[in-house]
């Protein structure tokens, strides 16, 4: 049964060889003048300093939570989108209701200021003090 997987192994091999070849080519052909900034993992991003245990804003958690919920909406939308032309108006109405309910949730969360990145009117900040 392993014959079925042969193309995958071939692909893996090709990818490995190609990657090595390109790295070697750029190393030998290109100029190599390292400095601190260039060697950082994220050359133009955040400084990766500090410990993993640093506390950061609660806003990240809130946005993450909301992301999970709205992300899952797509799970229902995709199968429906593939089939909805065959399914009649009933499913269209049902899906509209579903989206409207989620939209109400979005309005609620906007109104409550969860998506505000401006920390000044963030009510959880008040709790900390």
């Amino acid at each position: 049964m392993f014959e079925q997987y042969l193309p995958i192994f071939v692909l893996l091999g090709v990818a490995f060889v190609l990657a090595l070849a390109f790295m070697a080519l750029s190393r030998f052909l290109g100029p190599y003048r390292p400095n601190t900034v260039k060697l950082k993992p994220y050359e133009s991003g955040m400084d990766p300093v500090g410990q993993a245990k640093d506390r950061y804003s609660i806003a990240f958690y809130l946005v993450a939570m909301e992301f999970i919920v709205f992300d899952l909406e797509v799970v229902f939308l995709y199968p429906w989108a593939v089939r909805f032309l065959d399914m009649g108006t009933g499913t269209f109405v049902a899906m509209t209701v579903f989206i409207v309910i989620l939209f109400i949730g979005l309005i609620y969360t906007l109104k409550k200021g969860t998506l505000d990145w401006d920390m000044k009117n963030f009510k959880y900040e008040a709790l900390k003090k």
Partner: protein
Amino acid sequence: MNYLLDLQSFLPGIIVAVAGLAAIMLEAFKKSANTSFSVTIGGIAVALLFAIQSLYGEAGTAFSGMIVYGGVGAFGSVVVLLGALFCVTISREYLRDLDLHNGEVYGMILFSTTGMLGLAVSNDLITLFISLETMSICLYVLAGLMKNEKIGAESALKYFLLGAFSTGFLLYGIALIYGATAATNLTEIAAAAQPTFLFLCGTGLLFVGLFFKVAAVPFHMWTPDVYQGTPTTITAFMATAAKSATFVAFVLVLTRMLPSSEIGDWQSVLQVVAILTMIVGNLIALAQDNVKRMLAYSSIAHAGYLMVGLAAGNEAGYAGVLYYLFAYTIMNAGAFGVIAYYERNHGLDFTEIDSYAGLGFKVPVMGVMLSVFLFSLAGIPPMVGFIGKYYVFAAAVQAGLIPLAIIGVLASAASVYYYLRVMVYLYFKEAHKEYSLKTPGFLFKWTLILLAVLTVYYGVEPVLPTSSLMELISSYYTV
């Protein structure tokens, strides 16, 4: 395709869900908890009217067999909505005192009620699962309302972890049943079921999930902690509406999915669980010094009495369970209501039984009502609790389960001790120091009075010539 008829058959649930959306929108835009409160009361009341109307209508299935309407489901919806209505009406004053009064609470209560309504009418394991989760997830939030108190956060965490754990069992059970029968519809499962290992495992796990939710021993551990750490009126909501909805779903599963004893001897399992639940619930309740915790164990014990009706497995048993749920909702909402009234005067530790000393004479109407509710919970005639117990135990005798009925009667006799103990403190102990009790608000007081009147009225109604409630319930099982 009769889309509108389908929607109409789940009208109470839709009304409640729309009211819930309205409640949180009002909170977001108007910041007015009172408006949300009015919308909540209005929504539940309208839904209740439609549910009562469908009590007398015909029964059938809708949404391609996903839900049932009329009959058992309609009665379950009425009980759930009654529980929700009473808990909301007593919540406002109590939550205001705790500084927790906001629109989201009502939104959560309404969404949870939507889940319960779905649970009470589910005819399909998918509907059952989604409704149960809608109900539970909102209840996790409600359990954590006092999130800045340690015990509030603790009760929410315990409820959430154990609830999610039990969800795993429930879902695994559903998956195995689906694997054994290739169906999720309860009646289709009944038609396709064979007593294979797979099917028995699946049903067993499904039962474990449901036992968790109704707090049957040995899956009751979360109950006292959660009930104690939750605001009292919300506890009333959990103990009445949520428990009723889950029991109605249990009745639907037993009658529609497991109608014949050829696919597993589930009645024996229920008997064992019923005996354990009654004994453990009552025994531990005897040792409680906190009234709220005592009521939590008493609610476990009541789950045991209800389980007796399920174990009887005959028409009288299921009818008895439905009647008992109605009775339990009325008297337990009332008991928690009076406790909430005493509690909110002096903060959270005012649920210890010592602090009840001499309280009965302070605001006489409250003391009398607490006595009525506790008498009813103990099953002393002429209260509704006695009638409920009578129906359930009579059904067990009728099914030939005489030892089970005897254990039930003995357990409920033992329970009289801890209910009466509260009354002894209320009336026969000297108060340690002078407390001043606030006068209860209009809505709060009259809700409790209505509950007390109903407790007594339905205690004598079965012997009146106009008796109708039990006949109505029985008619669901004889057709």
